């Protein structure tokens, strides 16, 4: 038997529309729930975790900054101590600079000349020397020229060497007016630490000595140390003769100033 549906199609539209409405409603609800779940189970824990990590990192960062500030404070407090120490050490070092210089010069002195004066102002060394012959002068000078670690290049001058007929000559640097003998360098011997003693002990007995003066500029000038208080450069010692550069309060305050506590009983 043939079944014939004689009902119009529109009779199901209402049902379909209701089902579609329910479907979209569920879909909207699903979207809402999915959003809530994502927010609650994914984002919120991430935020909590990141906040905790950021808080921890910031706490540690603050500690780091605090510790660094403390370290800087400690280092800042070292500066004045170090300045004093540096000055003391510089003075102690300065005190041995001249003996070291003179002893080193003595090592480069030719032992057949007599050094009878030595003076240094920190930049220039002046030596009064006497020798018996031009050969000795030349050898002595060659030694001095070779002391390149002591004297600036071309800074060695000599004066007082007699010329012919009563004239004198002076010169600076290598060569000069003195006619050095060939082979002088080969015969030149470094005199050693005893040289100046030996050479100075040799007293001139005859009038045939040649007196001359040698002037050398030091390669490393000797500078007297100056104390500079940290943070007060130019304030202290700026006045003439090291007079105080200020920083003191009024000498005689008219109004009562801060009271000094009474001496302990």
């Amino acid at each position, binding site marked *: 038997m043939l079944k014939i549906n004689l009902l119009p199609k529109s009779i199901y539209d209402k049902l379909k529309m209701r089902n*579609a409405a329910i479907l979209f409603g569920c879909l909207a609800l699903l979207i809402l729930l999915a959003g809530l779940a994502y927010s609650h189970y994914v984002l919120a824990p991430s935020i909590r975790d*990141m906040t905790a990590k950021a808080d921890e990192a*910031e706490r540690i*960062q603050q500690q*780091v900054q605090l510790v*660094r500030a403390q370290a800087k404070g400690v280092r800042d407090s070292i500066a004045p101590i170090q300045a004093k120490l540096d000055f003391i050490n510089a*003075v102690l070092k300065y005190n041995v600079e001249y003996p070291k210089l003179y002893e080193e010069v003595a090592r480069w002195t030719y032992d057949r000349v007599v050094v009878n004066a030595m003076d240094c102002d920190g930049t220039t060394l002046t030596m009064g020397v006497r020798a018996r012959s031009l050969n000795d002068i030349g050898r002595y000078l060659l030694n001095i020229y070779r002391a390149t670690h002591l004297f600036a290049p071309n800074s060695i001058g000599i004066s007082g060497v007699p010329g012919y007929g009563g004239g004198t000559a002076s010169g600076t640097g290598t060569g000069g007016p003195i006619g050095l003998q060939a082979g002088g360098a080969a015969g030149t011997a470094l005199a050693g630490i005893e040289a100046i003693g030996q050479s100075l002990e040799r007293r001139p007995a005859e009038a045939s000595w040649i007196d001359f003066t040698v002037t050398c500029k030091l390669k490393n000038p000797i500078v007297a140390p100056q104390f500079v208080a940290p943070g007060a450069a130019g304030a202290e010692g700026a006045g003439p003769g090291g007079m*105080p550069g200020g920083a003191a309060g009024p*000498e*005689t305050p008219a109004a009562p100033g801060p009271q000094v506590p009474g001496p302990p009983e």
Partner: protein
Amino acid sequence: MILSKLKLLHIVIIGSVVCIGVGVGVYMMLIKPQKELLAKETARYNAAIGEGTMQVLQAAQDDYVKAQNERSRAVAALDDQMRRRMPDMSFERRDIGMMELWREQINTLGPLLEGFARDTNVDVLPTSMQIPAPPASPNDAIFDKTLLEFPSVGQIVVHGDFKSLMANVRRWNNCRRLVMVGPIRLAGTSPDLEATYSISCYIFPVAVGGPMIPMAVGGVAEPAAGGPMGMPGGPMGMPPGAMPPGAMPPGGMPPGGPPAGGAPQ
């Protein structure tokens, strides 16, 4: 009723719009703020993590310990030098500090330097030290100075051989005060060399000047003209309250009234 007028297509469109609206709403109202918060926290974390790790904190703490060690070393080194080369003199209490400076400048420093200049290994010409008179006011600016300078307090002339003279100069580094030996001038011939040099003395007080002492205007005596180890103007010009009880001369209070700085009751 209304539904009866709608068609399925309308339901689909409305449902889709509602779903999209719910999705957008959930995103805009829930997810987006949380994502922004998460991004903000992440940025905060990233900003802090550079210095906010335990390793950095440990390094900072190590650096702090290192700084403290440096400070300890510097303090120990300075303390050692202060013990060896400086008088125990503090200007924190200006009145007491002034008396200490008086004792140092008038009684101690000159004889100490003169005594030290007497070196048995060389012949020392009689030397007289010239120490300027100390200030007569506890509010003098000298008490605010970190370094007390006594330039060219004496000219030393010694005779001997070269080595002994150099040793004599170096010997000043063993003095119980910080002494700077000026440029050395050598003259003569060894072993009758003559060395001439000047000495300067430097003193670091333990502490610089404390609070000023209130004093009457014009109550300060002028220091005596600087003879060798000259006395200052004397206690006559001391301000009221400036004299510590231990330093009070027998006979009682100086003219000018009772101390204003709080004498012992």
